[in-house]
């Protein structure tokens, strides 16, 4: 058995296979629910209601989608140039640290939000600059370096929260001081839990889309990712492009941490991110690395998490079902996408 490319996949193939992947995901979810001793239809229904069933649920989902859009964009940008940034988690925390450092009184108030945003992006970019330089100068595999940076950063945050950044009024909890009111992202409307970070995330997606499609840097980035050798031969400065891509990717991931601190939590703690950096990979892959599609897939993934939380409380099925749902959704979707371009032939 081997795979053979299909020159012009039919519309039925391109729409039918992703739909089939969705169905397969639902089947797996049902089996898991059965295994947990619950009624599959009820479980699925409660996930959907919990995610989008009420205004509160929907806003909660959009809030949860906000950091995922940023990390999803970070991964999509990097993967587009075949720069395998697995370290969005570390870059996210770099952004969060800067948001706290500058947002607790260090910067005069009228400028504090834009200033913290810009410096957060710089911090995230710097975190990815190291692995990118190691890759372009010495050929060190960035999968390893960016992945390991996540652990370094988590331990560093732990040190900061137990030491220099620990809130003296925090009753001994490992968390930072709270941000000044001026350093917080306001809510979109009074009484709604949704903050402006969501709107900024959508703007970021549009900006990234425009960069990819309309600028010469975007052209270079796509060329390097599609065929490194041909890009290099044609005169694309491949190493410079990889570095620039790394800076953009790291900056986007850092905005996730910045917006979580400034928009939602108001302070830094060790549980700021339940793996948003890693989930960003799923978000970007499901979106086929298209920046605009990242908005949709981030909301989908956030909905599954939020919905599963609600379902878990109601049906007594563990929330781990959310992780398994996402994992199977990703696997089926990747397979479906492969099979839209290739067919299996015998021999």
């Amino acid at each position, binding site marked *: 058995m081997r795979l053979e490319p299909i*020159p012009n996949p039919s519309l039925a193939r391109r729409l039918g296979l992703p739909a089939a992947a969705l169905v397969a995901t639902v089947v797996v979810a049902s089996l898991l629910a059965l295994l947990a001793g619950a009624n599959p239809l009820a479980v699925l229904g409660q996930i959907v209601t919990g995610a989008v069933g009420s205004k509160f649920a929907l806003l909660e989902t959009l809030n949860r989608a906000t950091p995922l859009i940023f990390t999803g964009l970070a991964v999509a940008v990097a993967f587009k140039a075949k720069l395998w940034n697995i370290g969005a988690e570390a870059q996210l925390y770099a952004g969060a640290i800067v948001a706290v450092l500058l947002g607790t009184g260090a910067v005069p108030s009228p400028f504090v939000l834009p200033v913290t945003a810009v410096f957060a992006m710089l911090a995230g970019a710097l975190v990815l600059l190291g692995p990118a330089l190691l890759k372009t100068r010495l050929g060190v595999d960035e999968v390893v370096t960016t992945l390991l940076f996540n652990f370094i950063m988590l331990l560093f945050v732990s040190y900061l929260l137990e030491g220099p950044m620990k809130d003296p009024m925090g009753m001994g909890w490992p968390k930072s001081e709270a941000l000044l009111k001026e350093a917080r992202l306001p809510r979109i409307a009074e009484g709604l839990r949704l903050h402006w970070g969501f709107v900024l995330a959508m703007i970021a997606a549009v900006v990234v889309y425009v960069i990819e499609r*309309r*600028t*010469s*840097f*975007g*052209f*270079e980035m*796509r*060329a390097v990712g*599609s*065929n490194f*050798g*041909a*890009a*290099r*031969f*044609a*005169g*694309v*400065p491949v190493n410079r492009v990889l570095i620039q891509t790394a800076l953009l990717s790291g900056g986007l991931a850092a905005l996730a941490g910045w917006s979580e601190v400034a928009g939602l939590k108001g302070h830094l703690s060790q549980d700021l991110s339940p793996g948003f950096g890693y989930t960003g990979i799923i978000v970007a892959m499901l979106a086929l690395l298209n920046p605009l599609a990242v908005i949709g897939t981030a909301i989908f993934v956030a909905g599954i998490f939020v919905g599963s939380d609600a379902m878990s409380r109601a049906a007594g099925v563990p929330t781990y079902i959310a992780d398994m749902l996402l994992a199977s959704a990703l696997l089926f979707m990747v397979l479906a996408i492969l099979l839209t371009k290739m067919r299996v032939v015998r*021999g």
Partner: protein
Amino acid sequence: MSQANLRAGDTVLRLDNITKRFGALVANSGVTLDLKRGEVVALLGENGAGKTTLMNILFGHYQADEGRVEVFGQTLPPGNPRAALAAGVGMVHQHFTLADNLSVLDNITLGTESLWSRGKGRAVARARIAALSSEFGLAVDPDARVGSLSVGERQRIEILKALCREARILILDEPTAVLTPQETDALFDTLRKAIALGLSIIFISHKLHEVMAIADRCVVLRHGKVVGQVDTHATDRAALAALMVGSAVALPKAETRPAGPVLMRISKVSTRAKGTATGLSDLSLDLCAGQIVGLAGVSGNGQAALADLISGLLRPDQGRIEIDGAEPAAWSPRQAVNHQIARIPEDRHKTGTISDFNLTENAVLEAYSRPPFSRHGWMNWPAAQAFAKDVIAKYDVRCQGVLQRIRLLSGGNMQKLILGRVLEPGPKIILANQPVRGLDVGAIAYVQSRLIAARDAGAAVLLISEDLDEIQSLSDVIHVISEGRLSPGFARGSKTAAELGLWMAGQGFRAGDHAA
């Protein structure tokens, strides 16, 4: 499965009328080949002649569209490497298939032992390796880690691996490409012992002096067909070279014209060998306005290094390059483009184009960073599309439009787009590396006439080709490259194909020529 009762001269392997197509490309066309017991047959041919495809069919990696493979009188089931192994066919690949972190013994037994018989099988295997080593003169330490061994030693392990699996027919794919002359001699001793013990060998190479030294018979492939079968003692190197590279395709002829000033000068450049790719050795070459310089040579003799040098991918380790009398301050592909060098790469699929990009994007791949295609970092796609449309019209690119992905184009149309991309800006220097390989006759004539037109317009052209006829009909001056060294320039018509063949085979170069 060993067939010890066969006598010398009996046919052990027969490839019968093998045809294999990849889409429109015919890789093998009606190839028939016999191998007798105790015989070494050399399979000769240029890159892309179909040698590797043929051996992959024999070994079961590919399935032939027509024809069959017979080993010891029995037809092999197609597309089944296990059956080929079981029938006694052993293959030593050009790129070794060994695990660096395992011992020699482990590498040899890998895949032959079942999971639960490790203990006693190893003692047997150890004894067997010792016996085969002394029988064939293949000295190896069974406990050495493969990662610590030299290339020559690794090759011995590959051969031992095949012998341990009772191979009676050995296929060696360019075995000497990575060996020193001493290692080559040792390999030949081993092969002679193998023949004396009744094995048969297919030896793939394009080093003619080695073929003359070891083979009983030569089978020459060209464009997928057998174009000659000769006994080694009844032929000579020049005749073989002519068979390999000759071609009967009618090509446009270019009239010689007086050369203009030197536009690019390469003086005394040396570059290191990269992997199995030959480097350049003290090479000097002038490219003059209005002149086509043809570079002939058997592939793998430094053509790639010279092309990379001119393309900007490679910088000289020693020596210098000058363009218009001045040494460029920096040297990179973009510098080469900025110095008005048009580069037609050898591999239009992998280096010349980005398959997932559309025709517009591919058309501006070199010039995208300059006006009118981009300004202040913003792409001007309408201008890029206009350029692509222009190229498509002027260079007769058959396509569905400027937004079609280039992977769907035929090789000829792809090449025409590349031609348009590099020739439209009016280059001073043109590097054409195998510009017509794999094209049909019509596209060949078109590409060549464009090169001649560019020369007539005053460009300096370097044409690299393995096809001697193409070189002879287009070039004003011909150089031969062999092992990274460049022959003197020969004016058009001053050397016959046979004489050039001798240079290609390495004769004619100054003292130190180590061709046998």
